[in-house]
């Protein structure tokens, strides 16, 4: 009996070691970004956004999501990319963050959900000279493509 238990435990341990995180892959221009799925509450189509005056330019306004008023920001403007071009593929990803509460971010396109193994994610070293690096926690590889993993806490600051 004792032996059996030991052999049972081993494969389980291996799975435990290789921790995985699921990411939603989105597109901004030609680049691919990943958003940790545990923060994603919902993905909705582009809809009318009510402008809020006197706020930062990347805050596009508020939307009505099933009776809740939720602020929406443009990921492109936040990352100093050219302004959004609204197409049929444009989506608003609703994020639930611990500190900032619920916010929506506008992305060009939602592609797929990928599972990345934590070990294979390359950490990005902090570089004070380039602002854009700060939005990214690491880079993951999937099907020979690179996915920049977004640091949501920095984005939602």
């Amino acid at each position, binding site marked *: 009996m004792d032996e059996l238990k030991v052999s049972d435990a081993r494969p389980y341990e291996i799975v435990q070691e290789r921790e995985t995180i699921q990411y939603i892959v989105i597109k901004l221009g030609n680049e691919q970004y990943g958003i940790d799925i545990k923060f994603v509450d919902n993905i909705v189509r582009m809809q*009318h956004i*009510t*402008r*809020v*005056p*006197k*706020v930062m330019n990347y*805050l596009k*306004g*508020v*939307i*009505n999501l099933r*009776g*809740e*008023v*939720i*602020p929406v920001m443009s990921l492109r403007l936040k990352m100093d990319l050219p302004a959004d071009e609204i197409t049929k593929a444009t989506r608003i990803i609703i994020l639930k963050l611990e500190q*900032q*509460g*619920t*916010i929506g971010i506008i992305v060009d396109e939602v592609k797929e959900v990928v599972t990345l193994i934590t070990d294979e994610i390359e950490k990005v070293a902090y570089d004070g000279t380039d602002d854009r690096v700060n939005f990214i926690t690491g880079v993951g590889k999937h099907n020979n493509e690179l996915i920049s993993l977004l640091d949501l806490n920095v984005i*939602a600051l």
Partner: protein
Amino acid sequence: MDVNQYLEIFLDETREHLESLNAQILKLEQEPEDADTINEIFRAAHSLKGMAGTMGYKRMQALTHDMENVFSEIRNGTMKVNSNLVDTLFQCLDALEEYTANIQETADEGTNDNQQLITQLNKYLKSQGNTQPEAEKAPESQEPVPEGPEEKWLDIKIGESERLVFSNAKAQGKNVYGITVCVQESCLLKAARAFLVYKAVEEKAEIIVCNPPANDIEDERFDLDFSLIVVSDCDLEEILKSARNVSEIEKVVGAPYEFEAVETLEPKEVKETETKPAVSSQPQNAPAKANDKKPAGKPVVNRTVRVDIEKLDVLMNLVSELIIAKNSLVSASNAEGVSGNGVNEHIEYLESVTTNLHESVMKVRMVPIESVVSKFPRMIRDLSKKLDKKMELYMSGEETELDRTVVDEIGDPLMHLLRNSADHGLESAEVRAERGKPEVGSIFLDAYQDGNNVVIEVRDDGNGIDVEAVKNKAIEREVITAEQADNMSEKDIINLLFHAGFSTAKTISDVSGRGVGLDVVKSKIESLSGEVEVKSKLGEGSTWIIRLPLTLAIIQALMVTVGGEKYAISLGSIQTLEDIAPSDIKLVQNREVIHLRGSVIPIIRLSEELDIESCKAPDENMTVVIVKKGDKLAGLVIDELMGQQEIVIKSLGKYISKCKIISGATILGDGEVALILDANALI
């Protein structure tokens, strides 16, 4: 079953009793001879002791026990109330509050024995030449136990098996008792009380027969009394006492149970017929007893239900959703042009129902501010001693009702203003005498409803605000420069008091004046969508006026458009709507104003404030919404009026909180979000 499930009831009731004790002891100090007050205090203390005992909070029980002894002496007239005694009693109440707070957090009373307070109480008792046992007897002799009509346990029919048990118990030298427990008529949770009694008795004795059966008691299927037959080693008095310790128990009677030997059946029949008339006389007796136990004027039966505030919040949210749904129905029917088949009448009916529903739910959420202000007389009394100033607090309008969430939040700001008045406002006795004012300073707390607002005023007849002192302090603290100060009106300078980091008290006392305070008061009240202002006359006193909205969630609003965007303005702040020709606008100090019915009103162009292009040509007549804040007016220039609507206020969330002129958002009938303009911030 576990005592823990009664913890909430215990906490609620303890707080109620403590609150009443606080108020009554204060009253006792004023009228030491008032029998009603003393009886009320005694009852509250007694219930507290009983409750603490049943829940197993020994320290709390010990302290209340000694307090009860003191009250009993006062009631018997062998002890006089003096200020020192009242002080000690208040300290005891504080200690009890501490226990309660501990229990709420950890379900444990903590380890503070408060031995010092107990010794102090006993010292008072001893100094009156009374010993404790005497005091303890007092409450019992007060409630004589008339045996006879209450002895309902005699009705219990016992079977062979029980009789056998009794015989065996007797043989083992144990006692068999019959007990009848009467629950108070006003008791809300009879089953819970009965259970507590049951549990208390069970600790001391083995319960053999229960009438009605235990299951029925648990399901509350009994009148006001139930009977037990128990077997125990203990003294009867001991068992009865533990049962009496449960609060809201009218009385517990008991006696050794005489049972017949197994063979004789006939005498039992006789006994039953004997007791029957006695039982029927019980109902006449009981109400009479209940009446002389309670002070006149208090309803015997409390027809209320305790509801969790969260459930009310859910209800309120649902009503909000319903109103949004109704609004969308209205806009859909308008858009589609369906007017046949009386659709409009139905919608109008629906509208009136939802409005009534909203009002009813609002009313349910309203609680009198009494629960907050009732602790203030005690606070002022303490302050009066601490600051060595004589002062009196006069309150009116305690019955004024406000939304529960507001009432919960308003306590601290009010307390701060009262402390402020006591510490900074009122002068010392010598100064008051010099100025020809009565020696005792007066602080007033008045609450009343004013339209859709509730106004709470804190007024004192003290020194008032020294504008010069405020000005100098502001310059010293670099809040303003000397040049700015010269240009400021008296009112502006007084408003500097609400500036963060400002205190004019010359010395820092622990009552108030740490430099934090008035700004916190202001921001707290503003977070409740209210406002605070101050009026003052040097040497005569000052008045702090807090204005709070009756409701926080749903308001009547005027919908307007500016540059194609929809905005809502709360109807409460709107004075009038005006049509103004561009030529009527004049410039005063480089600001646009209009002259309207004798007053000059500054104009605010909303399109500029909101950073949007107005859709109107500059030479067209302008629609101006005149809004007021306190006694200030301003005209908001809008593009078009859309109409009046009931709107549900939704928060914009923390993320967009920086925008001052927007106080929130609302969802319109078509699902679109419209922002709510904060007229107060615009002025």
